[in-house]
């Protein structure tokens, strides 16, 4: 546990001593950690520290804005940070709700220190994976952005493996025109085959080739 992480774990809990102890614990295993006394306080810093955020350890019950509310606010604002909830005894219903809204995990107090550490690691991993997915989608979308609307139509049918003749009949254009569009698509996307084109389109939109 001597590895160090470049990113920071944020802790939001209204009990000062407890949140300090969480920071102390996380730092013990090499995380950098920051404590916040309330959801509001965290929100102020969230935007600034977005890219730097590893995950959020969040008390589900807090006096002003509750953990659940904060989770919803973050989703609404597109702040895709993985959340590990800390719940008190008997808060199972709240925890279920949190999980439905995409929480990574929840821990019922009192919990083992190792449980928290594992939950944080898993959350960070999930967050990274989700972030990578998003990056790749954005990249694919950017490539497809280069195509004109007609070229996009042709590209979709080509990706489905249709021969030029069929594409021409489908779009009611000449076979020659299809051929030209196809060449432009391959040039703009810098791809070599219909199969690679299909993969790109699916990355941008998992349902791109449906129906």
């Amino acid at each position, binding site marked *: *546990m001597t590895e160090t992480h470049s990113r920071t774990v944020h802790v939001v809990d209204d009990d000062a001593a407890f949140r300090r102890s969480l920071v*102390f614990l996380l730092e*013990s295993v090499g995380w950098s950690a920051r404590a916040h006394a309330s959801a509001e306080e965290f929100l102020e810093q969230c935007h600034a520290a977005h890219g730097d955020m590893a995950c959020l350890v969040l008390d589900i019950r807090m006096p002003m804005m509750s953990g659940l509310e904060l989770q919803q606010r973050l989703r609404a604002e597109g702040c895709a940070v993985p959340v590990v909830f800390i719940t008190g005894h008997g808060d199972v219903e709240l925890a279920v709700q949190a999980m439905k809204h995409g929480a990574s995990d929840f821990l019922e107090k*009192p919990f083992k*220190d190792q449980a928290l550490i594992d939950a944080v690691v898993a959350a960070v991993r999930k967050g990274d994976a989700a972030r990578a997915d998003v990056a790749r989608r954005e990249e694919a979308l950017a490539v497809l952005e280069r195509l004109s609307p007609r070229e996009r139509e042709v590209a979709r049918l080509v990706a489905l493996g249709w021969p030029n003749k069929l594409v021409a009949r489908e779009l009611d254009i000449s076979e020659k025109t299809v051929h030209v569009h196809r060449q432009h698509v391959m040039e703009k996307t810098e791809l070599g085959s219909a199969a690679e084109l299909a993969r790109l389109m699916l990355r941008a939109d998992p349902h791109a080739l449906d129906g």
Partner: protein
Amino acid sequence: MPAFRRSPLAAVLFCVLLAAGAWLAPARADDAVVRIGVLAFLSGDDTLQAWKPVREQLQRGLPAYRFEWLPLDHEGMRSRAARGELDFVITNPGHYVDLEAELGASRVLTLDSGEARPERAIGSAVVVPRTAEVPARLEELRGKRVALVSRDAFGGYQLLWRELLALGIDPDHAFAAWEVVGFPMTRVFDAVLDGQADFGIVRACLLESMPQYAERLRVLAPRDEPGFPCATTSRLYPDWPLATLRHTSPELAREVAVALLSMPRTAQGVSWAVPADYQSVHELFRELQIGPYAYLRAPTLMALAERYWQWVAALVMGIVVWVIYTVRVEHRVHVRTQELRAALEERQAIEARMRANQEQVDHLTRLSVLGELSGTLAHELNQPLATIGNYAQSVLRRADAGRLSEAASREAAGEIAEQAERAAAILARIRAFAKKRVGQRERRDPRAVVSEAVALFRGMLAQAPEVTLDDRLAPGMAVEMDALQIQQVVLNLLKNAYDACRDLGPERCSIRVGLSISAGVLRIAVRDQGPGLDPVIRARLFEPFLSTKADGLGLGLSICKTIAEAHGGRLEAREAADGPGMVFTLSIPAHD
């Protein structure tokens, strides 16, 4: 019972006839008239006819007297003799023994019928049809039907009775049916021959004297009696006596005796002999316990029981019923007493237990209130414990990794110590609250009591809501109360108020506590800003075990109400007049 008892009607009729007879009969005016009663076993005329030779001889021998012969039955002869209307009686030996005992009859002569000796002249015979092979012995008569003239008949029954008893046969129980045919004795023969009875009992020699019956009937089990001309089933007894009565003059007795003794044998072979010994008849009667010996029979319990069995049965029944009734009543009284005693003991035990456990009850009510607060308390304790755990584990991890700085150690140790104190403080609060104590009333300042409760409440919660005190009491006020119990109530109301508003946000979660006094009543009102209560719930608010909370026991308000009533006060709930929320008001009397 055999059917030979006399009917009462017959007895009455008989008495009437006797009275009439006494009235009509001429008094014994003429001393020369001598009345002789003769037992009639045939019809009256036949009897006189049978004695005709004797009558004529006597009249001839003693012409100075006029002999009047009266054919009588047993009872007729007895009653006439008792009234002194007879001078002599000629009767069978059994009847004679009766009269001897009762009326002092004294035998003068014994009849000598010629064929047998006078002292062994009478026997009893059991007759059965000659066609019947069975019975051959007297024992075989058990279960058979018997025909006889009367149970009082001497030769016709009593002699044989003795023989049956000697064989261990009790006639009262042994026979299937009794055909009592009455005189003349030949009816017995007819009854047997007609099949109305299986056997008959007659005087010995009667059958031999009547050939028309003798050819169809035989005598059962005849005894060997030398010198006796007939077949007899019983032993033999002396012949009929002639007896005087008490008032008969010895002179007359002697003259009659002499006249009869000197009389030649009649054509029928009848003459008179010196009186025989009638001891055998006495023995017979003693054994049978009849006649003069009937008293022997009377005292035996069995005999009494047999005779009066209906009465005995009724008496026994009565006693049994009475015993059952008594036992039953006794039993019920016993059971009721037991129940009563058990109930009393149970009540005493309960009362004793209640007295002994009054403190325990107080303690339990406090614990129940504590239970209501336990959800919050558990959460409170969780915080320091989790914090301590985190610090301790972190220190271990850092030490394991060789990265434990002194600064980190100090920080962790300091936090751990602080959190341990925090936990200890929470526990101390609980313990102080739950500690047993004897309830006590004392004059206390309500303001101080309520303020303490509010402070206690706020101290128990991490994010205590705002509690404002609306104090309208005069300074230095004192009211008699059990301060701790009142604090329990206030704590409970505060907790309820907090539960009602905790999910509504801090701006709505403020609690107002009102203190006021009017008309000698102290009021402590706790007002929340919650959503209020469903009317159904409100109606049942103070019932035990009613709770709207998932972790509630439903005892809080019920206990609060009990405390209020113990103070002679009340606990009421109403909706706040101004805006949302409920007001719970505890009122207790405040005697200045």
